[in-house]
């Protein structure tokens, strides 16, 4: 099955092509084809996983050659697939969660006339994401990279008749493009330094080539980080994620929670060999992760839009993953672990949010929710399991993955210097904040007093919340089970970290500066404190339907910590000024010189025209003058 792993990509890609080309004729059965394609990919992936589990650890890195792609002088790139534990982990995540979301979308998009196009784009996304994670060279990875960017654009702007949604899609695409510059520069630098772009040639050589090339290695690492920041919505390229919630909820669940935004983390972990010999770049990765962690947490505390709050949470959790990846070999495996568990509970929560919106007339303002636990029981339970997972309450998934990250943060740099304290405390505070804002979200939506009414006549908005249909409910249930049990399952006997060892290297263990029980205790205390504060303010007390003025920090958080204003002031306006200056220079200098030349010749002509004054005598004088000049020239030459 490993040798047939190209089917993983081919099936969804073919399905996307069929659905797009068949057009309206396939409206009646198109969505089922999409679901089948995704399920088939999952089946192939599961087969490959079983085959790989049967292999010995040393044989678990397999390169499957597909075809010769580029042969241009010294640049030789084969198109092939790299089947190893890391890529298979991602394959399982993408196909499993993806298939569940496909099933969910059949019911969620039932009333949309463009449902078939939606499934085509979803399949396109799955295919591109699989290319990304299965690529055996940086160049093929980049192909998948661009593909998921395209799919994201198409899906965010799915309802592009609304100009705001179309603009949000453009914003996401443009910011990703900025990151792609980093990717391209990194590709160039890798090729310049290593002479190849394939993983099997680049990664083993990294430690050998570092002597004398530390600056280059660090630069490569930084460029890869820039690329990852754009795709994973890390600081400073994080402004697009909030607006990306303009897309339908299944899109937010699949792309902007579970899979695409994790592509950045995948890139960093995959390039672990390079980062291991570029300590400065690794440190920057950790710092970026830490900053984003806090950024997302602060913003998430003030959002009233349920999807935007979940998006801020995603940004923060990926910050955790980046922080873990930036800790070096002690953190790579935990980053992927948290990525996996996060994929389950965040996707589950997004699907739950979609279910809530489905029942509340597509309203997203949490201030209009409240006391939905009785009206939508299954949604409540599944969402609640995801909530407990993200909080890190044992024995749910989040506890296993997040706690490990916090421990590793306290253990970085062999416990010396400022790094363990700073990163560890940041991770700890982030955990507390995450508890607060996720609890706030949960209690505002499902508990407290109902800020809606089923009666027509009351002054509250009229809603008829009901449980979602089966096709929506079952994926949520399955994901909730995963949120609950997956973490525990994978931690038993460290089986996940040993599974990843062929790729991330053997897991080193350093001692954290605080002992493990202290860290765990502190984490749990902060988590309960955050949850309690949220309960007190949003669960027990009445929630105002109009957002109160709030402190300066609250206002800043509501405005996304002024990220858009900063981007506009720092990049957009100077860019516009530069463009306008260039247009002006083009008009004045380039056009001006051309028309000026024409005008000059014209005025020259008018000047010469004055010689034509009509008087014979002046003509005669001119003739004589000409004759004189000829004679003088002849005289001079004759001498």
């Amino acid at each position, binding site marked *: 099955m490993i040798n047939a792993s190209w089917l993983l990509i081919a099936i969804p890609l073919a399905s996307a092509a069929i659905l797009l080309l068949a057009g309206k004729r396939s409206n009646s059965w198109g969505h089922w084809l999409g679901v089948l394609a995704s399920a088939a990919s999952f089946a192939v992936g599961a087969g490959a996983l079983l085959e790989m589990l049967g292999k010995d650890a040393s044989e678990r890195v397999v390169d499957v050659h597909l075809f010769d792609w580029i042969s241009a002088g010294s640049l030789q790139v084969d198109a092939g697939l790299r089947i190893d534990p890391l890529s298979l982990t991602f394959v399982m995540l993408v196909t499993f969660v993806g298939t569940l979301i496909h099933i969910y979308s059949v019911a969620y998009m039932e009333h949309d006339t463009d449902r078939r196009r939606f499934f085509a784009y979803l399949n396109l996304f799955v295919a591109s994401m699989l290319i990304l994670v299965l690529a055996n060279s940086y160049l093929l990875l980049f192909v998948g990279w661009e593909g998921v960017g395209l799919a994201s654009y198409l899906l965010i702007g799915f309802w592009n008749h609304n100009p705001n949604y179309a603009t949000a899609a453009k914003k996401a695409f443009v910011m990703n493009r900025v990151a792609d510059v980093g990717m391209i520069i990194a590709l160039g630098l890798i090729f310049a330094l290593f002479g190849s772009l394939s993983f099997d040639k680049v990664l083993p050589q990294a430690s050998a080539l570092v002597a004398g090339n530390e600056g280059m290695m660090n630069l490569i690492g930084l460029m890869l980080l820039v690329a990852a920041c754009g795709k994973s919505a890390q600081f400073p390229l994080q402004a697009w994620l909030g607006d990306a919630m303009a897309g339908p909820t299944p899109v937010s669940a699949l792309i902007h929670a579970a899979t695409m935004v994790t592509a950045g983390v995948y890139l960093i972990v995959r390039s672990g060999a390079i980062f291991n010999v570029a300590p400065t770049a690794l440190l920057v990765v950790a710092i970026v992760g830490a900053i984003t962690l806090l950024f997302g947490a602060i913003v998430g505390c003030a959002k009233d839009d349920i999807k935007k709050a979940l998006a801020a949470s995603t940004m923060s959790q990926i910050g955790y993953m980046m922080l873990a990846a930036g800790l070096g070999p002690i953190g790579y495996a935990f980053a992927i672990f948290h990525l996996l568990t996060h994929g389950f509970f965040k996707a589950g929560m997004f699907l739950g949010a979609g279910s809530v919106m489905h029942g509340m007339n597509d309203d997203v303002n949490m201030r209009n929710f409240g006391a939905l636990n009785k009206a939508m029981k299954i949604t409540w339970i599944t969402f609640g399991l995801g909530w407990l997972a993200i909080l890190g309450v044992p024995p749910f998934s989040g506890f296993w993955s997040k706690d490990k990250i916090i421990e590793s943060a306290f253990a970085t740099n062999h416990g010396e210097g400022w790094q363990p304290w700073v990163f560890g405390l940041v991770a700890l505070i982030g955990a507390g904040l995450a508890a607060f804002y996720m609890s706030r979200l949960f209690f505002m939506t499902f508990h407290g007093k109902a800020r809606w009414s089923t009666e027509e006549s009351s002054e509250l908005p009229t809603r008829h919340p009901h449980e979602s249909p089966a096709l929506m409910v079952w994926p949520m249930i399955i994901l909730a089970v995963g949120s609950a049990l997956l973490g525990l399952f994978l931690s038993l006997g460290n089986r996940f970290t040993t599974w990843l060892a062929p790729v991330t290297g053997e897991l080193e263990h350093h001692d954290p500066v605080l002992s493990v029980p202290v860290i765990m205790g502190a984490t749990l205390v902060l988590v309960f404190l955050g949850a309690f504060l949220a309960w007190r303010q949003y669960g027990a007390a009445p929630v105002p339907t109009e957002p109160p003025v709030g402190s300066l920090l609250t206002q800043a958080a509501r405005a996304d910590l002024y990220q858009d204003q900063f981007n506009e002031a720092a990049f957009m306006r100077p860019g516009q000024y530069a463009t306008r200056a260039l247009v002006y220079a083009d008009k004045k200098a380039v056009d001006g010189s051309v028309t000026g030349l024409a005008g000059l010749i014209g005025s020259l002509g008018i000047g010469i025209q004055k010689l034509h*004054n009509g*008087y014979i*005598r*002046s003509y005669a*004088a001119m003739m*004589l*003058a000409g*004759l*004189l000049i000829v*004679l*003088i020239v002849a*005289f001079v030459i*004759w*001498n």
Partner: protein
Amino acid sequence: MTSGAEAVLFWCLAPLMVLAALGLIFARKAVHATICMVFVMISLAVMYIANQAPFLGIVQIVVYTGAVMMLFLFVIMLVGVDAGDSLVDTLKGQRWIGWLLGIGLGVVVFSFLGRVSLAGGKGHAETVANNPAEIARVLLGNFVFPLELVGVLLVTAAIAALTMTHRRNLTKRIGQKELADTRVASGARLTPLPSPGVFAQRNAMDVPALDPHGQPVEASVSRVLRARGQERDAIYDPDIELLDEAGRPAPSTWDRSVGSGASAPANGESESTAVTEDSGNAESTSNEKED
């Protein structure tokens, strides 16, 4: 021929020629300029003859001086003798440019001449005696084709001149009767210019005629002479005027009766005829007697 005579000829004639040519630039009236030009032409003819080209010299006089310059004079006459122009130039700076370019031309060509050795001179004294035949030999030998072409050119020139000055009658030809009618209608003078008159002392063309009053008649002298200021004063006797006043009989003393048939007396004596006439006339005649 290094004869001193030729040198004398040259050095006498050349400055005069230059002066005459300068007269062409500076003369105000066109006729003066033409006369200067004629002088130059004739001097050139003399120089040709001195340069052992007698045929050319005679042709110069006949063609140039005789035909071309006379042609110029005719045209001046057609155009009008008073069509001179002032020496003040209408074009800005043309005067300076003209002098500058002219003198510059001279300087440049002189500098050319300075580099060329024009010394020596074989001369062709043997051709002088039979110059026309010698020239004909060359002309009809080497230069037959140009000769023919020049012939064509002359014919073309003549036809061109005819064509250009020919006036086509676009309207009906005005005959003598129409001309006379037009003249009468416009009130122009119909009669010839007055003859000198009884009282004239002279009958020259440039002396005006005297009218019956003995006064000069301006219109009797041609306009051209008047324009030239060549009209002379008339000689008239002032007494003629007095006699005219006293001598002429008054029209009222003439006898108007049908029967008497007596002729009026030559002298204006009014008393003799007053008795025989009616008393009706007596008052009128006595009234008119005092005229």
